[in-house]
């Protein structure tokens, strides 16, 4: 398809859908309804939206959907750190139940007992998985959960009179950028630890970093490299001794379910992305849920309300003494709470552990296979990888000039993809693969084969890779200028019309 921009489909007079009509008696009683709006607040002129018949709108968007490579359609293992796994269709069917879809968040608690039960039951499951004592599902993503945790750290120290004194948060360079960014939003100075030569977080650097200014320590484990820090308990001990809180980024906990937990590693808080490890879909980038768990002493700091269960009744508890207030409106993304609960119940305790084990098996299988590809490597310690690995094409780039960006474009031609990695590229020419438990050996082999093929091309005929994609929805873009120059970027169609000569010429 070569779909136009939707404004180009405008045909004056056409209509996509009709609104429910206003009853004639109502109109008679109140008049046109809009002349009561004060002059200055009336909309003048007609909205510049396009007018398009229903069938054409539908055709436009279903075609665009076909031009989107959802995880249902490919071996989606190239989004390392993000855990793309199989999204069970049964869960998608369950969330379309009007008994869920058509609930208002402020309904009387008696009328949403089922929904509250699901929140509570998921809470119980998450406690088992993490060892934490209470969960909030209000955060709308991992980033927001990190923000909520940073807020709790601040509130906690404030409640102890150390709010001003403790103004530093320590993180590591291989943790997700949101850890640093959200803590900075809460006014913290960020101390970023770089790894030792094997890729492990460096305990000496941590010791050097902690002080009476330390508010908290936030880290992922394994980090983006897939390397698990075996001395994590020592890390949390050091931070605790310095008076800081430890919080754990478990956005991706896929290799750990039933194996090891936040509690035993000494964390005070953690969060899980229900849209990653717990098989809720990513939906092009949200809505999502960062399930936020805390130990008992931090429960009163959680964003309100949380769900309580007493005498067979579920209720919303708004009264949390030290609550940080709100991070997201109402109760969070209920659909994704339901999805995660359904997924856990489809697996049970043993199934969850199998998830972790097979994710690790799959990843180590890939790790062995990818390392055998010419020009690919995985910096740092050999082995020790759990559910993902950050690889590098550094050698290939040196030898052929083909970069990781070239490879990602070429992957498109195979109906596959990967993204490179978060900035900064500490690992040069990076790519991060995370096969999860969802893919079969045959799927992994298909993916590996594509990488092998591209490596071969890079060494034999690099131009093929550099000029990719050859077989994608669109041709190669002329990016730099149009995205980074204020005179050329166009963030909306109206802006495009203004800026392009097309409009000039038309005048």
């Amino acid at each position, binding site marked *: 398809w070569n779909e136009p921009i939707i404004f180009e489909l405008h045909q004056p007079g056409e209509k*996509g859908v009709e609104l429910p009509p206003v009853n004639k008696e109502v109109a008679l009683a109140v008049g046109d309804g809009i002349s009561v709006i004060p002059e200055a607040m009336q909309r003048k002129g007609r909205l510049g939206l396009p007018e398009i018949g229903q069938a054409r709108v539908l055709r436009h968007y279903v075609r665009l959907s076909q031009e989107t490579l959802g995880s249902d359609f490919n071996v989606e293992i190239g989004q390392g750190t993000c855990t793309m796994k199989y999204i069970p269709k049964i869960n998608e069917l369950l969330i379309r139940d009007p008994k869920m879809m058509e*609930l208002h968040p402020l309904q009387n608690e008696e009328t949403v007992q089922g929904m509250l039960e699901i929140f509570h039951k998921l809470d119980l499951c998450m406690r088992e998985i993490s060892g934490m004592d209470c969960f909030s599902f209000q955060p709308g993503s991992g980033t*927001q959960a990190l923000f909520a945790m940073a807020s709790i750290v601040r509130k906690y120290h404030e409640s102890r009179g150390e709010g001003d004194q403790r103004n530093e948060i320590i993180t590591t360079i291989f943790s997700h950028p949101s850890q640093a960014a959200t803590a900075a939003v809460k006014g913290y100075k960020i101390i970023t630890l770089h790894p030792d030569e094997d890729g492990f977080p460096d305990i000496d650097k941590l010791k050097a970093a902690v002080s009476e200014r330390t508010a908290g320590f936030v880290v992922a484990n394994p980090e983006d490299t897939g390397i698990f820090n075996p001395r994590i308990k020592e890390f949390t001990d050091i931070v605790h001794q310095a008076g800081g809180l430890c919080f754990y980024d478990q956005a991706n906990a896929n290799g750990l379910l039933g194996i090891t937990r936040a509690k035993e590693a000494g964390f005070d808080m953690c969060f899980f992305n229900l849209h990653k490890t717990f098989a809720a879909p990513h939906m092009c980038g*949200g809505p999502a849920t960062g399930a936020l768990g805390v130990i008992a002493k931090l429960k009163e700091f959680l964003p309100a309300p949380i769900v309580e269960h007493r005498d067979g009744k579920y209720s919303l508890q708004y009264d949390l003494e030290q609550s940080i207030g709100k991070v997201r409106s109402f109760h969070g993304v209920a659909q994704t709470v339901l999805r995660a609960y359904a997924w856990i119940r*489809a697996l049970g305790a043993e199934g969850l552990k199998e998830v972790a084990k*097979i994710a690790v098996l799959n990843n180590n299988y890939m790790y062995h296979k990818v390392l055998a590809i010419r020009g690919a490597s995985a910096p740092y310690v050999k082995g020790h990888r759990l559910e993902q690995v950050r690889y590098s094409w550094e050698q290939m780039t040196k030898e052929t000039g083909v970069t990781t960006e070239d490879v990602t474009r070429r992957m498109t031609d195979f109906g596959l993809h990967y993204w490179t990695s978060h900035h900064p590229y500490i690992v040069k020419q990076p790519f991060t693969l995370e096969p999860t438990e969802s893919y079969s050996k045959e799927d992994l082999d298909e993916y590996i084969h594509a990488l092998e093929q591209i490596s071969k091309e890079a060494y034999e005929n690099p131009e093929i890779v550099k000029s990719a994609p050859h077989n994608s929805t669109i041709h190669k873009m002329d990016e730099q200028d149009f995205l980074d120059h204020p005179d050329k970027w166009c963030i909306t169609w109206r802006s495009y019309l203004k800026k392009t000569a097309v409009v000039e010429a038309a005048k």
Partner: protein
Amino acid sequence: MTQKVHPYIPNMVPKVQEEMLKVIGAKNIMELYSCIPDELKLKENMNIPPALTEYELRRHIEGILNKNTSTKEYLNFLGAGCWQHFIPAVCDEINQRSEFLTAYAGEPYEDHGRFHALFEYQSLVAELVDMDVVNVPTFDWGQAAATSIRMAARINGKKKVLLTKTTAPERRDIIINYGTPDLQFEFVHFDVKTGAMDLKDLKAKLTEDVAALYFENPSYLGFIEEQGPEISKLLKGNQSLMVVGVDPISLGVMAPPSHYGADIICGDLQPLGMHMNFSGGQAGFIATRDEVKFVQEFPSRLFGIVPTVKEGEYGFGDVYYDRTSFALREEGKESVGTQTALWGITAGVYLALLGPDGMYEVGQAIMQNSQYAVQRLNQIPNITGSCLNSPFFKEFVVDFNHTGLSVEELNKRLLEKKIFGGKDLSNEFPEFGQSALYCVTEVHTKEDIDHLVQSIKEVIEK
């Protein structure tokens, strides 16, 4: 084969595992966990109920959900930040498409459709607010407002922020949580008779260090703030920015805040095609003019249009990616991550379906229906349909102070009549005593409203 292979985990097949372990050179899977010290390993099994098969799961979940009573069964007049509107079937069809549902962070080539649809969403909302820049959607109105305010503060480097006291309490909490400790907040009073902002108080608080004023229009309490131009003049004179939150479904009939001086506009997309989902349908947007000083302060992704090597073909990509926290970690503008992209696509579909006439009609229908409700409520003795003496949109404050009943009691009795009454305001706005925020939209028929009025009558007369 002692353990069953789970349908979600193909490689549980023992034979396949053996082959893979051989490649790896490990004896068993637990060997791959040798990097985890024993003392960190979970000894016992997690206390989670045994696995359910798909059919059992369905019966289990549906059994639980059946304990809910939805707004399809009872008549609903709750709004207050999450609203019941008409949702075209095409919106659901599109956002349930497997491709959009399961896509994530693909690149502009293989995910061309996602970029295209979100660029269109930006462009369509831009028409609504009459601004040239709109972001990929954020979490919700509250967070969009918080971010808009932080953007404003970064733009002019000031630290004090004014909020009207009629700001929605939830959004206020989010704004303050996101704003502290960097910013200081102060509240501007309002006229209890009309809801209008107290301009005298505003002038008093509008000191030199004020980065921005935030207010909502239509407001949380439903009234229309008509002093926009005056407020704008005051702010401009002080080099403070005007941030306005807006319910986008009002913009077919109401002026967009850009027309009365807003520098940054934010709001919630939920009314534009999202089911309420117990609040899972919220999504925020932010809009500004196309000026570098604004664009560079967006923390969000902004998709831009780019020509390809083929004449006449469009591609899309991230505008000015280097400002984001993805690129710069803590040096980036706030933070970005998974937010509510699917709702952005859906809002785009909604706007494309309704078009200019539809947006006008829906705004008008809401105004007519809600005015009718107020008119009818006024006919009940001891009740004032709208206790604010000013025009309103969709929501209004009903005064029950003279009924001798608390709103809590009243709502309980309405529930027996299968009605979800308006939101109890007695805690949030004690100045209104026993009052409730009612919401009437285009989905309410005359019969629905008459039934509400009749029921309230019966309840208070009993």
